[in-house]
C-alpha cells in the first residue's frame, strides 16, 4: 500500500514506538533501543476488534451480576452497579452518584462506541475528518483508567467494613468482570493506531 507523500512511512521511515527514534523500516530493529520497527502496528484493527468484543461480552455480567454484597445482621443484600447509583440518589448523594454513574456506566459505554467508530473509520474508504477521529481517540485514552474507580471502591469497602455478624461487605462477581472491561478497553485504545485514519486521507485535509 502507498502512504501519503508527507508521511514518514512514504519515505520508508518508522518511528520507534518505544523511544521515538526515526529509522528506516528495513533495519527491522530500532538502532537506539532495539525494539521492533513497524510502519503501522501489525494487525492493528483485528486486535482492537478482538479486545472490543471481549469488552462487550464482559460488560454483560459486569452489569447483570452483583458488584458487591452487603451482609447486615446475617441477611445479604446484593447490589449491581446501577443499583448502587440508584441507592446513592435515594441517599441524596448526588455528586457521588454522578461520579459513579459517569465513571462506571457512561464512560465505558461511550468508550466502546468511540473505539468501534474509530475502527470503522480506519476501515472505510473515505473517513470523515481525521482530526475529529484523533480528538475522539485522545479523549478515549485520557479517560481509560478512570473507570477503575468503582472496582477500587468495592476493594476499599470490602477491606474496611468487616464487622463480623453485624455488617460486612463481600465482593461480587461483577467486580472482576468490570475490571476486565476496563483493562480490555484500555488495551484496545492503547493498541489502536490513529495513523491508519490519517493514511486514508489525501492532501485535502492538510
Amino acid at each position: 500500500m502507498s502512504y501519503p507523500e508527507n508521511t514518514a512511512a512514504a519515505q520508508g521511515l518508522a518511528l520507534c514506538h518505544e523511544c521515538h527514534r526515526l529509522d528506516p523500516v528495513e533495519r527491522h530493529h530500532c538502532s537506539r533501543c532495539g525494539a521492533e520497527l513497524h510502519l503501522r502496528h501489525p494487525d492493528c484493527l483485528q486486535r482492537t476488534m478482538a479486545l472490543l468484543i471481549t469488552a462487550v461480552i464482559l460488560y454483560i455480567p459486569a452489569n447483570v451480576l452483583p458488584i458487591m454484597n452487603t451482609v447486615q445482621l446475617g441477611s445479604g443484600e446484593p447490589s449491581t452497579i446501577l443499583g448502587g447509583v440508584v441507592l446513592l440518589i435515594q441517599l441524596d448523594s448526588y455528586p457521588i452518584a454522578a461520579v459513579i454513574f459517569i465513571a462506571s456506566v457512561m464512560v465505558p459505554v461511550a468508550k466502546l462506541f468511540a473505539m468501534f467508530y474509530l475502527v470503522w473509520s480506519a476501515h472505510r474508504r473515505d473517513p470523515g475528518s481525521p482530526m475529529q477521529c484523533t480528538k475522539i481517540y485522545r479523549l478515549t485514552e485520557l479517560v481509560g483508567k478512570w473507570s477503575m474507580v468503582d472496582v477500587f471502591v468495592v476493594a476499599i469497602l470490602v477491606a474496611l467494613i468487616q464487622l463480623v455478624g453485624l455488617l460486612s461487605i463481600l465482593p461480587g462477581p461483577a467486580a472482576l468482570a468490570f475490571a476486565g472491561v476496563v483493562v480490555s478497553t484500555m488495551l484496545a485504545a492503547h493498541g489502536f493506531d490513529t495513523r491508519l485514519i490519517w493514511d486514508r486521507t489525501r492532501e485535502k485535509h492538510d
Partner: protein
Amino acid sequence: MAATAKVGEIAPRCRAIRPPVLKGRNSGERSWESLSVTEISNQTHTACEECDLLVALPVIQEGERAECPRCGHLLTARPRQGFERALSFALAGCVFLVISLSFPFLAFSSSGLENVMTLPEASLAIYRQHHAGLAAIIFVAIIALPIGLLAAIIVLTIPLVVGRRASWLPQVGKLMFKLNDWAMVEVFVIGAIVSLVKIAHLATVVLGLSFWSYIAFAICLTAALSGLDRMQVWQAIEANTA
C-alpha cells in the same frame, strides 16, 4: 557511532518538510524559515506518533514544547530541569509511599465495633474472599506498578543527573514508560474519596496517616513524571550510553 547513521539516501524527493509548532516562553521570537532539506536524519527529524507527518525538529530549548503542525500532538517538550525535578519528586514520593504502606489507611467504627484497614488490605481482603484474580489486578495497579515506576524513575534519573555512565539505562527507560501506562494511583485516590462519602452515613470513618500520605504520593508521582518527556529521556540515554 554507527547508531546515528544518516538515512538521507532513502529520501531523495522529500520537499517541504514542515517544522513543528513551538510553544514556550521565548519561542515566539524564534523565527523559522522552511528548511531546505537535502537529507533526512534521525537527529533532526521526527514523525508524529499520531498522524505520521514527517517533521523537521529544531533543538528544543528548556521550557519549550513542539507540537505536530498537522494534528497538534505533542512531539516533545523539554521541561526546565526535568530530570532533577523527576528525581527529587520521586525521592519524596518514596518517603510518602513507605508511610502509606505502614500506617492505617482508613478506620471504620459502628456500634462499638471498630475495623482498621491498611493500604495492602484493599487487595488482601479481596484475596481472602477467594477473588484471587481481582485481588491481583488491584495489587498490581495500586501497589506493585507504582513501586516499580518510582524505582524506575529513580534508577533512570540518578545517572542522568549525576552524569555517570550506566549501560542498563535503555532497559530501565523502556520499563518506565510501560509501567506509566498502567499505574492507577490517582484513580485509587478518587476511589477512596468516593467510598468515604458512600459510608459516611453508616458510621464514623477516620482518615489515617496513610490516606494523606498516599495522596501526597500520587502528587509526587505525577510531578515526577511531568519532568520526563519520552524523546528527551531517550536522547539523554543515548548520550549517556554512547
